[in-house]
């Protein structure tokens, strides 16, 4: 049997190479677009998190403009962000799965994989190195040229150069197979829509045909940056709990010389030699001021009746609470010795606590957001756990029970949205206004909600008329400030818009110049695919979208009926101005009179009546 051969390990970069379709690099058109996205989003994320107003410049240049598409292009994205410290550059751009985005906060990208994928794709299709120029301190710029060793998942540095420069920021340039003829529209849309949802950023783009697109920042303040927070109980699975337990589990301290020094210092017995009894006596006096590791060491010493000399000669192997035995390795005799532990001893509890980990209530309040002591106790009642249960002692079945209970308990407060960075109503409004200069517009930011433990916020804007050229409802979708351009049909936002009965809001949805801008912010946007192009229809998200849209539609409806009334009044006034003169003319001839009757005053009156009607309406609404 040679089944063993089948289990050769592959490196992450090889895995991604084989599965590049998943990440949006399936063909030259899509790949060029995805590469643009990954680099621009990385730059925006970097600027956001450092509080720098982004200024991003992108160029796409054909290597040989004469050739037909698909052909090789050089894509360069340059930003004014924090840059990457020189020593991290090779790893950040030369390995897959190296990144700083593993915490729980909102960011455009998830793990910083995409940029590496783009580099990998460029390398595969053109065999040219990536060029990275990074200036992290505003003094020195480091220029790298690198290739990626796919098998080993390691960067191969071809060239490294240092120059002094005061311009902080990062510039990445790759050569890749692309099809701008086909991808151009999407890329231009992407750049423009990104500027719509990031009105504090300046984004410029020089396209291969020599066209320049420049979207200047229209506001000078950024929305508050998101913070990293602990997870919410909803959406936690057994595996996550297990990993959290490992974190909380106090390891038996490694009793080395350093540790012993620490114990001596805390006891104030640094210099001299002390007997076991002297140490214990001092401990009783100082207990309250001792740190936890020191207390644990002293507890161990109490059961071994060991002084510092003896402590140096042994290594603790196990604390067996079931049999109340303490096992240790004695270097001097080279054997494992079991010492009894007195359950009555005050130190026993100290040791037991350490090994068994925190109580369930402590664990819940410390490790999760939105769980206070009361909520923790209430939860334990609900889940039928004793509040003082030690999490370290929990069996697998109990962990499953705990995880299930966390999902079903309804008493937790909704997730903390401070990890989110919605754009805010005013910037969104400004973004829409700059683009469409609409006759009517309304925006709303819903309060934070959560699906499966992940907080999210819906922001939405609606615009009518003005510079909107398209007829019918156009929906601009954004998630974490990323425009979503592909796979529109299957997106939950589209579903909600389609389900709306626009007639109710006095809008002819197939002919009205209507734009809807929808932005969902979440620590994890539930994309349907790895390509991150459409949001799945989670009921919680759908509900929030629906409420947001209803709010905006009602506002629009108010505007529409006012508009409708004004139009009707105008139409009526026009009608009288058109027909009354004719009526006068015909009746004059019919009755054989010479002079036409004076009908002008009637037209005036009629127009005046409609005007006052209109004013009344405005007052009522105002």
């Amino acid at each position: 049997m040679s089944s063993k051969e089948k289990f050769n390990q592959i490196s992450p970069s090889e895995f991604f190479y084989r599965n590049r379709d998943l990440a949006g690099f399936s063909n030259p058109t899509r790949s060029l677009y995805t590469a643009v996205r990954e680099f621009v989003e990385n730059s925006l994320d970097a600027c956001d998190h450092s509080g720098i107003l982004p200024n991003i410049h992108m160029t796409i240049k054909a290597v040989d403009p004469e050739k037909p598409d698909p052909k090789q292009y050089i894509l360069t994205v340059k930003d004014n962000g924090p840059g990457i410290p020189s020593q991290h550059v090779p790893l950040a751009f030369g390995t897959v799965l190296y990144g700083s985005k593993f915490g729980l906060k909102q960011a455009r990208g998830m793990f910083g994989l995409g940029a590496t994928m783009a580099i990998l794709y460029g390398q595969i299709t053109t065999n040219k190195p990536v060029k990275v120029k990074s200036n992290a301190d505003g003094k020195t710029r480091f220029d790298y040229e690198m290739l990626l060793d796919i098998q080993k998942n390691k960067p191969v540095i071809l060239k490294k150069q240092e120059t002094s420069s005061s311009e902080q920021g990062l510039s990445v340039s790759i050569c890749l197979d692309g099809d701008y003829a086909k991808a151009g529209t999407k890329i231009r849309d992407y750049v423009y829509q990104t500027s719509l949802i990031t009105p504090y950023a300046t984004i410029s783009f020089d396209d291969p045909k020599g066209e320049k697109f420049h979207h200047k920042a229209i506001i000078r303040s950024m929305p508050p940056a998101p913070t990293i927070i602990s997870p919410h109980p909803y959406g936690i699975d057994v595996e996550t709990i297990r990993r959290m337990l490992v974190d909380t589990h106090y390891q038996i301290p490694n009793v080395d010389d350093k540790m012993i020094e620490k114990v001596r210092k805390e006891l104030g017995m640094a210099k001299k030699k002390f007997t076991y009894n002297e140490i214990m006596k001092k401990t009783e006096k100082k207990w309250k001021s001792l740190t936890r590791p020191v207390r644990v060491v002293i507890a161990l010493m109490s059961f071994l009746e060991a002084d510092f000399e003896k402590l140096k000669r042994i290594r603790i192997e196990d604390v067996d609470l079931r049999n109340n035995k303490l096992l240790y390795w004695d270097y001097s005799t080279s054997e494992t010795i079991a010492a009894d532990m007195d359950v009555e001893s005050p130190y026993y509890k100290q040791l037991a606590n350490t090994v068994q980990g925190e109580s369930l209530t402590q664990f819940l309040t410390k490790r999760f957001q939105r769980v206070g002591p009361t909520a923790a106790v209430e939860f334990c009642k609900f889940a039928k756990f004793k509040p003082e249960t030690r999490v370290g002692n929990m069996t697998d079945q109990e962990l499953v029970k705990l995880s299930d209970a966390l999902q079903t308990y309804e008493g937790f407060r909704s997730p903390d949205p401070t990890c989110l960075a919605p754009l805010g109503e005013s910037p969104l409004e400004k973004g829409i206004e700059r683009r469409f200069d609409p006759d009517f517009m309304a925006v709303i930011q819903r309060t934070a909600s959560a699906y499966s433990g992940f907080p999210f916020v819906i922001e939405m804007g609606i615009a009518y008329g003005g510079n909107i050229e398209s007829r019918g409802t156009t929906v601009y979708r954004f998630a974490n400030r990323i425009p979503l351009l592909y796979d529109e049909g299957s997106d939950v936002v589209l579903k909600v818009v389609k389900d709306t009965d626009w007639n109710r809001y006095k809008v002819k949805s197939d002919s009205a110049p209507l734009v809807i801008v929808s932005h969902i912010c979440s620590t994890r946007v539930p994309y349907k695919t790895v390509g991150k192009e459409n949001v799945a229809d989670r009921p919680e998200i759908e509900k929030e979208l629906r409420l947001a849209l209803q709010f905006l539609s009602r506002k629009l409806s108010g505007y529409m009926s006012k508009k409708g009334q004004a139009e009707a009044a105008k139409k009526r006034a026009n009608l009288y101005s058109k027909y009354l003169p004719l009526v006068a003319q015909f009746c004059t001839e019919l009755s054989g009179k010479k002079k036409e009757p004076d009908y002008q005053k009637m037209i005036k009156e009629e127009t005046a009546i409609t005007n006052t009607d209109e004013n009344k309406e405005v007052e009522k609404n105002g």
Partner: protein
Amino acid sequence: MAKKQTKKETKKQNKKEKIDKSKKLIEALKNHGAQIYEDLENGEFPKFSIPNRSISNIIYDKKLRQYILGTNTSLRSARNSSQLRSFTQLLWLAFFANKLTHEKKSSTLRDVYYSSQAFAIDFEDQQESDNIIVDLEAVLSQPREDFFVFPEERSSIFGDLTIEYTIPGYEGKTQNLSSHPDGYAIGPSMTSAELSSTSAELVIAIEKGGLFTRFVEEQVDKKFKSIIINTGGQAPRSTRTLLKRLHDEMGLPVVILTDGDVYGEHIAMVIKSGSANAAHLRELTVPDAKWMGVWATDIDKFKLPTIPMTESDIKRCHDLLKDPRYQEGLWKRELEVFTKIKKKAELEAFSKYGLNNITEKYLPKKLEESKSF
């Protein structure tokens, strides 16, 4: 001699009546104009009161033996912005009708539609202008022919009848209507002409042009001392007016010959008692007119070749069975037979027994019969 004298007197009287009618019309139009003028002067919105022509307001008058409008009227006001347009259209038509009547110039329905465009009166289509014409008829209680608006002509007349034209350019000119074998079109000049003299003792209205030609060829006019009129299907108003005048002024009985089906029966009925469409008008009916055939019972009697009825034929039968005019006598009997046999026979069906079978055999028989009902 005495008879002639009487005729002359009638003629004079007719002429006078006609001038009166025309005067009355012009007077009515002027009054409407003056009322509207006054309203405008007073800063009030003018309005027309129009008899309601919806089904609910159409009733059958047994005494008059025709459909008439009930007492419901609707107001068309210039104040109502949704009625202002049609109000203006109606006023314009009154103005236009006034002009036509003064100048004695005739206009077709289509002419009306196009004439409106010179006055920035925007009729969307001829249907709309036709409706306004009916509105004016209802307001004035006079048919459009009285204000010189005529439909396209498709019916014709033949026989020994001498007429005297009254339309401008032909006044006093006479014409005998047996001089041209194809017959004479029944248009505005014909309906407005004086009926001077005739040797005929009968008017035969026939539904189809083909049979009309046959009747002329076979000299039915001479053989039966008759005037032959081709109604061209459902008789137009001008034809019905002429039929009425021949009956009333010349004292001629009117008989009607149609296809042997439900539509034929109803063509005869409309000549006799008018249509629901024209319920707002009187003086278009010949209540004494007689439907001579082809009856449903004739189909079997004369062994005529038949065609099965279509779905819509049968539906029409059932619709008419509910009509108050079909609730008794011949009309009810024949309609019920049609409904039962679900078959129909055309006038041409007699050709099976020879081309002149209808004039030689059927017509005399039926004329004889008709005297008895």
